[in-house]
């Protein structure tokens, strides 16, 4: 089991796009050579901003809810695991359902692959591979008190995607005034760049929510 105090925090505004997390994930014994996480480029034409995409481990995971083969399971510690190999039929429902874009379908093995917060490591008290190598601590695994002491941002674990609300185990660092992050998916669709919210602005600068609210209005 994960240490009671240790939690996973993601701060995309700290990400420098080095992909050390992806490389570290590949090193893991249980899925050697294949990364279960990936790096997202926010908008390569206009910004260098990148974001590491590790599983947020929702309390009521959308991926598992839409799986027709009953292949995605959540353990008692709240970790949503990768597909059960004998059950996964490679339908990609989970890929489409996850609002965070976490699960990936790998055609070579006809399986869904997703981050399981290195359950083989965290279950014996070690940190997830990605968090151990992240040079800018965009991925941080440790006690909440340390994060509150060292960072200006506030850890968020409630999200609203349109009408879909989610509460996650992994926390996303955002502006101190924010309790819940609301996203209008349409704002992030291709072609809507003019109204796109700068995630980096939102998470670093106070008043980020005002920017978002202004866009929503």
């Amino acid at each position, binding site marked *: 089991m994960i240490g009671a105090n240790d939690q996973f925090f993601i701060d995309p505004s700290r990400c420098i796009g080095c992909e050390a997390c992806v490389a570290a994930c590949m090193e893991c014994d249980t899925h050697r050579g294949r990364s279960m996480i990936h790096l997202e480029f926010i908008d390569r034409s206009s910004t260098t901003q990148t974001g590491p995409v590790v599983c947020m481990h929702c309390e*009521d*995971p*959308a991926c*598992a*809810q839409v799986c027709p*083969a*009953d292949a*995605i*399971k*959540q*353990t*008692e510690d709240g970790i949503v*695991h990768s597909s059960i190999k*004998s*059950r996964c039929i490679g339908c990609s429902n989970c890929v489409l359902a996850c609002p965070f874009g976490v699960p990936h379908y790998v055609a070579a093995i006809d399986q869904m692959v997703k981050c399981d917060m290195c359950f083989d490591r965290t279950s014996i008290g070690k940190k997830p591979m990605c968090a151990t190598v992240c040079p800018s601590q965009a991925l941080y695994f440790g006690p909440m008190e340390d994060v509150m002491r060292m960072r200006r941002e506030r850890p968020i674990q*409630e999200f*609203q995607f*349109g*009408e*879909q*609300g*989610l509460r996650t185990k992994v926390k996303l660092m955002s502006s101190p005034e924010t309790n*819940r992050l*609301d996203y209008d998916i349409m704002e992030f669709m291709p072609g809507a760049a003019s109204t796109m919210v700068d995630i980096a602005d939102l998470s670093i600068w106070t008043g980020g929510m005002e920017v978002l*609210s202004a866009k*929503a209005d």
Partner: protein
Amino acid sequence: MPKPTERPFPLRRWRQDFPVPLGEDSYATRREFTKFLGLTSFAFLAGTFVAAARKLWKHARATQSDAVSVASLDEVPAGGSKLFRYPTDDDACILLRLAPDKFVAFNQNCTHLNCPVHFDAANSQLACPCHHGFFNAEDGKAVAGPPRRSLAALAVTVHDGRVWVQGSSERGTA
């Protein structure tokens, strides 16, 4: 700003059979069950071939082995018996001298559950003490008790003052 839903996915009745928490999952999918059946059947099939191959190999080795001397003539009196191993040390056999000039030899394993059989000269029978199985000492045929099959007989010959046996399914007398 939309109000967050209380629960993103309402709990439906069928979810009870397919729960998301791993601890509550006790359902074997048809795919897993089929796989289990298939692999088990294959294991049984493979096991059958292995057992058959071992038996054939053993039989071939027994029939190919040379005649061996197991006793001298004066070693076994008429109505007496002698235990020996043939063709390997794992195969217990029994040599019977039913009459001064009549020898027979059988595998000592009872055809019921492989207990060793013993010679009962008074009744001219081989008796298995485990479940009271009896065999005719002349030809090894099962005469009473649980065993249905005859004892495996060995070919017996006498020359140069010694008794020789050789693996054979034929009934052996000399």
